[in-house]
């Protein structure tokens, strides 16, 4: 047995501790620490990848020169990522000094654009996280987003003459209901027949994609346009934008935060949430305690679908103002990753969604100025995710302590099992 392991085990023994040590030890056991270190490690590995794929590193005359070039490339990449996600400090200062309103808006735009990018992630992340809490893997968020968008756009176009204050909630609700239906179907199939929700929600994705294409090439198609795209929604159905051009930041962000709060209250403060979480954490105990597994499964899948549907509604009502084919760039699938990063907790999901939104938005700039392909962000996300999924790696690298008892925030039912 190794010396090092022995010391580690010895350190676990409870001895007289002062407050600082207790804090450090708790910090070391905390899963949040793991998450943060996973993100940092992901960034480091991403940097390494950038360095390794920079051609100049290999043609450099000496090792020292090569290292310098590599570091420069990494710096440039992350600098571009940062300015793309948040803004260029010098530009912001200059704009503020000039006092020109449009210049100021342009300077701050990257930051707001990141928030805009985060918003659908929050909705979709909440959807998947809610499912996880109930032990359900809603892989159908993407399809629910499409149906949500389809319903919201329909409400936005065909309901006319309504005041803004009614039209917007109504269109959002339409999106939520559409998504809920798309979650309800795999939910009821799972509850009544035991058909695995993963399979069925994937199938529902395809139906959703083709269904939206069907409507976009037919009933919903804007006759004036050559491409399959819907007409614009009524002005009264558009989510409020708080600033003038070019800032697209809109009220959807705050609706998303509100939903996170509601999901939090539902899950952790109500008897319904207690049932949902119990079903998710131990279905046998839930049955023993007299809870209705069928009802809870169906409700959870429907709510999850509704949240994903709102992600779609948010995009068409807040940003696009119409529906196009393939309007969602895989929010529903990224949502699975960020629900995991956020430990399936509503507030964790907000943070993870912001991380994803800022990375995604910054990546566009990174591609333009540093010439680094946007895919590096996907790789970076993959690294972060792999580390979070395998906390043992992070705990070993950074010599963290094992938690006393692993609190499983997420517990998924196995294939065909219960």
């Amino acid at each position: 047995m190794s010396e090092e392991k022995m010391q580690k085990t010895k350190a676990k023994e409870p001895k007289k501790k002062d407050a600082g040590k207790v804090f450090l030890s708790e910090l070391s056991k905390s899963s949040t620490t793991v998450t943060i270190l996973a993100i940092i490690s992901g960034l480091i590995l991403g940097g390494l990848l950038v360095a390794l794929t920079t051609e100049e590193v290999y043609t450099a005359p000496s090792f020292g020169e090569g290292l310098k070039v590599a570091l420069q490339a990494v710096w440039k990449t992350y600098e571009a990522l940062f300015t793309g996600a948040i803004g260029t400090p010098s530009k912001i200062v200059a704009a503020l000094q000039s006092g020109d309103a449009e210049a100021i808006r342009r300077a701050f735009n990257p930051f707001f654009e990141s928030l805009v990018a985060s918003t659908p992630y929050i909705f979709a992340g909440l959807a998947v996280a809610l499912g996880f809490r109930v032990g359900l893997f809603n892989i159908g968020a993407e399809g629910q987003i499409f149906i949500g968008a389809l319903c919201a756009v329909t409400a936005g176009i065909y309901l006319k003459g309504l005041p803004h204050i009614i039209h917007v909630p109504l269109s959002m609700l339409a999106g939520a209901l559409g998504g809920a239906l798309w979650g309800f179907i795999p939910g009821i199939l799972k509850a009544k027949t035991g058909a695995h929700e993963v399979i069925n929600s994937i199938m529902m994705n395809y139906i959703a994609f083709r269904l939206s294409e069907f409507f976009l090439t037919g009933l919903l198609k804007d006759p004036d346009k050559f491409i399959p795209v819907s007409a614009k929604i009524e002005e009264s159905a558009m989510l409020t934008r708080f600033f003038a051009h070019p800032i697209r930041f809109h009220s959807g962000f705050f609706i998303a935060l509100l939903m996170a709060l509601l999901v939090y209250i539902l899950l952790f403060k109500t008897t319904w949430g207690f049932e949902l979480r119990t079903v998710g954490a131990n279905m046998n105990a839930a049955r023993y305690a007299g809870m209705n597994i069928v009802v809870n499964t169906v409700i959870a899948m429907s709510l999850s679908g509704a949240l994903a549907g709102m992600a779609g509604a948010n995009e068409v009502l807040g940003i696009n103002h119409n529906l196009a084919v393939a309007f969602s760039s895989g929010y529903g699938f990224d949502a699975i990753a960020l629900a995991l990063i956020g430990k399936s907790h509503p507030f964790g999901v907000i943070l993870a969604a912001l991380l994803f939104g800022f990375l995604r938005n910054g990546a566009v700039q990174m591609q333009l100025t540093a010439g680094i392909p946007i895919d590096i962000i996907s790789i970076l996300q993959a690294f972060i995710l792999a580390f979070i999924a395998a906390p043992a790696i992070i705990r070993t690298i950074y010599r963290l302590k094992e938690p006393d008892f692993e609190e499983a925030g997420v517990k998924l039912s196995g294939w065909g099992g219960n």
Partner: protein
Amino acid sequence: MDPVLELRGITKRFPGVLANDHIDLTLEKGEIHALLGENGAGKTTLMNILYGLYDPDEGEVFVKGNKLEVNSPSDAIAAGIGMVHQHFMLVPVFTVTENVMLGYENLQPNGLLDRQTAAARIREISEQYHLEVDPDLYVKDLSVGAQQRVDIIKLLYREADIFILDEPTAVLTPQEVDELFTIMRKLVEKGKSIIFITHKLREVLEFADQITVIRGGKVVGSTTPQEADQRLLASMMVGRAVELNVDKKPADPKDAVLKVENLVALDDRDQLAIDGVSFEIRSGEILGIAGVQGNGQTELVRVLTGLAHPVDGEITLLGEDITGASPRKITELGTAHIPEDRQRDGLVLNFPIVDNLVLNTYYIEPNARGVLMQQDILLKTADDLINKFDVRTPNSVTTVGSLSGGNQQKVIVAREFSRPIKMLIASQPTRGLDVGSIEYIHHRLIEKRDAGVAVLLVSTELDEVMQLSDRIAVMFDGKIVGVLPAAEATKEQIGLLMAGVVSTAAEA
């Protein structure tokens, strides 16, 4: 000559617990060495170290005088150490031969499995040790005792010299236990050596050559059956004088609370599990159900508590027909249920204690008002219950999964006993608990009986059933094969009923 196996100063720490504290143990060739201790004393940890599943923090293992480095079970097997686990490591849908070959396959020259040679070798071993196992049968068709013998064959096939048997008698009928001990004698006659882990005093005194008692991770003494008696061993195990018998007043049964008539039910594989069972339990009495595990007791409890539905028959609770009723309805009528598998059914391990204490009352005032859970009230109630039921925990928001088995069981008892109940269904209420917790739970069960609750006690521990029950019903093959007044029943009588050998007319 060097001893076959020697452990020197084995120490293993877990967070906050010293599981093994400088344990020394010497196993001589041809010896049956009983390792006696309560659950949680560190027996299993010690054996897992020996078997390479854990690394010790300190200490060394010697096999026949050579220092042994075990990093995995395969190292242990290579050194001739084999383990028969409490739950057999067998694949039910494989034949005996396939199970024995698993992980140790020999091949024909063409690369296919060589079942013939393996089967021949198994027959040879089986005859040599009188194990009576047919290598061509499927494991799922074998009796529990025969499955255990397959596990033993597995070790002999791998040429193990040192056998570790972990609670081997827990799943056997008294008659099968005797057979097992005959086999163990045979093994040591042929030069094998056995470490035999148990907490049953009777078996130790009857069958061991040498006894080592451990408590709290330390060796508290070594003795032999000739020198020791039950009382001495029990006090060594627990660290204080133990009352081995449960004190109770004679029962004063009143009106019938639960009536079961001609109940028929299937198990989860749709096989007939309960075959026409009828009985009744009256207020203020304990009806014990004895039987070897897997004779329908589990399904009976599941049907009575609404977790499974019967295909035929009638169940009446307090005059109300509850055949096929939901668990919630049965609970609300005043039934408490201590489930057989507390971690599977009774608790949500990664929920805090406070949530587990309201697992089936979370929606009732004052725990909730409308749909809002009243966290303050829950926390206060939890603190009261933790005090009253003596749950050892830092606080009420500790996850139940981090508690010891005994304390987990106390959480269930606290939850089920803290509401007004008329019927108590306790299934294996003391399984895996230490003597102290067992005493405590027994005491509470008697208390409920005296308070006029009808108690159904299902246990595979015959001693427990005999001590606590007022009447004993024996289940065999889905039927109640006999109901005896506890005062008149003898162990032999019940043992034979449990084995299905004799069947008296069932009279409930």
